[in-house]
């Protein structure tokens, strides 16, 4: 069995930054960085908009540029990288088992850094009634389809949730010539950065309905409309659409370590209860509003770990 000092699961901003920083503090350490994708970068690869790196690199970069810079650093840091590789299991005997086209392999480690990012809150947990037609996507899924695969997914969109991801997607759809009919927010205020509210929503005159909940989906086999509830007045509003985007928030993806860390759905689990060898890094630790924060957190974690060696 191959042994590593550090195994990092997830080759996004958190995992790449942590790998490079560990190398800096510990020139001899054996480091393995694993990602399921065909390239490093994680969710950054689908972020073609700018606003990344202002504090970490001191430059205004796109998400893809940010990823390529970190990727170059990983290359220079002589870190072993495994792509197209899915980690199947993390075991308490300090081993992981992963799968790829070459087979199944188990490796041991001294420290495991989980940098697996987030998943998106799916429609199922929102308590929405009605049909389940074609034409419903999560915001991240839609962003990947548009920016990475260049696919057209629909013309008239309603976006549920007014966080940054929803905002960015609203702008992207508008720039593709699509109509964003409205965006809804359950709270009385959008949680998005104000620059996104101005540049993505106001610039395209997209109405934002606050205190509004999605309650029903209509149409089959394609989506035709949604019913929205205005919470203060209980008034219902039917909005015709051909595309529904769920941008209802992110959940740290800790499925691989759920056995150490139940239960998954708890909002604020006790991170101190983790085994000493297991470290959470980036958005799977907590959701960061900007990627620079992820890199800074990864550096801090890496410094702490290399100091103890």
């Amino acid at each position, binding site marked *: 069995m191959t042994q590593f000092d550090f195994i990092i699961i997830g080759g996004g901003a958190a995992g790449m930054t942590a790998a490079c920083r560990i190398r800096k503090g510990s020139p001899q350490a054996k480091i393995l960085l694993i990602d*399921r994708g065909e390239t490093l970068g994680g969710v950054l690869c689908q972020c073609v908009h700018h606003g990344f790196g202002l504090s970490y690199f001191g430059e205004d970069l796109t998400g893809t540029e940010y990823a390529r810079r970190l990727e170059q650093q990983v290359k220079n840091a002589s870190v072993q990288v495994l792509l*197209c590789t*899915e980690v*199947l299991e993390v075991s308490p005997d300090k081993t992981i*088992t992963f*799968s*790829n*086209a*070459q*087979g*199944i392999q*188990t490796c041991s480690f001294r420290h495991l850094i989980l940098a697996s990012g987030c*998943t*998106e809150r*799916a*429609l*199922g*947990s929102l*308590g*929405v*009634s*009605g*049909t*389940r*037609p*074609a*034409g419903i*996507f*999560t915001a*991240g*899924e839609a962003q*990947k*389809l*548009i920016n990475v*695969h*260049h*696919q*057209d*997914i*629909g013309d008239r969109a309603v976006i549920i949730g007014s966080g940054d991801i929803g905002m960015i997607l609203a702008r992207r759809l508008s720039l*593709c010539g699509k109509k964003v009919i409205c965006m809804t927010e359950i709270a009385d205020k959008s949680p998005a950065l104000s620059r996104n509210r101005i540049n993505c929503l106001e610039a395209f005159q997209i109405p934002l309905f606050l205190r509004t909940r999605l*309650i*029903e*989906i*209509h149409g*089959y*086999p*394609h989506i035709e409309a949604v019913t929205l509830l205005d919470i203060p007045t209980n008034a219902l509003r039917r909005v015709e659409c051909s595309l529904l985007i769920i941008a209802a928030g992110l959940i740290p993806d800790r*499925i691989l370590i*759920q056995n150490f860390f*139940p*239960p*998954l*759905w708890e909002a604020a689990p006790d991170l101190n209860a983790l085994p000493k060898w297991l470290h959470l890094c980036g958005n799977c630790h907590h959701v960061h509003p900007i990627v620079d924060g992820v890199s800074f957190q990864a550096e801090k974690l890496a410094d702490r770990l290399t100091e103890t060696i």
Partner: protein
Amino acid sequence: MSSPFHADVCVIGGGVLGCMAARTLTRYQLKVLLIEKENDVCMGISRANTAIIYAGYDNKPGTLKSSLCVKGNMNFPSLCQELGVPISRCGSLMICHGPRGAEVLKKKYQNGLQNHVSGLELISGEEVHALEPHLAGEIYMGLYSPNTATVQPWEIGIAAFENALANGCEVRLSAKVTDIKKTEDGFRITIADTSVPRGGKTEVLTAGGILNCAGVYADRVRELLLPPSVRIYPEKADYFIFDKAVKGFLSHIIFQEPEEKGKGLTLVPTVNGNLLAGPSAQGDCAPDDVSTSSEGLAFLEKRLGELLPGLPLSAVIRSFASIRPNPFEVSQGKDLEIIRSPRSIHSFVIDQPGDCPGFISLIGIKTPGLTCCEELADYVVSRLLPVLGNPPLNPDFHPRRKSPVCMRRLSLSEKASCIEKDPSYGKIVCRCEQISEGEILDAISRGAKTVDGVKRRCGTGMGSCQGSRCTYEIARLLSRELDKPISEICKDGSNSDFIKGDLT
């Protein structure tokens, strides 16, 4: 003009019953054709129900339902083994909260004894709590049944379908029966292509016999040839499915018998490891209505809050509606209007008219239809065989379907040898359920044509992200394997394409 396609028997409807009947027919030297109006089998009642293999204590002793159900329950594990489908014989607890419910449980217990259901036990509320510590509230009594089991219902149908095909059955998918005429030696059936939105071309077939297994549409299919006598008035109910991460809440199927009037909840720890909760109170609906209702979902939330208060509703990953084909006797008034009798028919309706014995209809096969699927198939086939001149057995019939590879159920060394033979089994596509590209390609080679067809055959998209991370990759594999542009790949039923094409 070439002569029309002829089958000895046409099975109309590719749900669990139709697939099972087609398979049973291939045990004989018969040319069998299965006709299904959707683009895949198991698209109706079969894919959305409570997924339970009932023990048989609910049904009135001496009825066809009770005898088929008890037999079906006993035989189900071997059926699953033959068809390579997983089953969980987790047992069930029927629970009640007071003396009124206890009378119901005692009645069911007595029914069960008369029906020869084995292993039944009436147990105290404390014993129920000991078996299921997460159940909240006062529990007065429980009826324990060790033989109640659960399967993924569509898996049974699809496996039976694949086995029927392997034994020579032919199939027409996306084909709706629009006309049936009686001929001298059988029937003339007209089918229309449903794969195009405004109705495609039609085809005329001939058949010696017909098994009408058209589910919620079985009454309409019957009335293409016969005057109305039974009509289905479908009812709808809602269900929740919980994230697999919600572990350890229940180990048995729970049937709740409420003390006050109203519907109790059924809770099922599924074969796949999810918790299924439902059904909500039933309501009349259109036969093609698959929408959930906010009342239904609110009912489930309320009942779950009472029964399993620790269960987080934020862990619901999907809600869905199921349709029950509720049959009613009907007569025709003087203006030929349909008069519905006040009460629904409690038993399975198996209609074989004396003057047209070659046309058998299964109507209103609701609970425990899944449990009885093979027995019902045997039953109707045995009634059809004499009409077909008692054909000899098919010596080449092979009852087994090889279970498809399911990577997450294999040991590490088994996984490794799978990947060595075919590297695509090492590439995980569905992260939530850890399903590999190899399993998806296998599902496509077994007949999946849509994203949800792949889902029903290998379990992709059934995890917490509900396919948001793998749908496109699966669509791309479908596009490649079926040699179709991705814009023509459907999510589910006909015309449910979800990608318009390249962005311009």
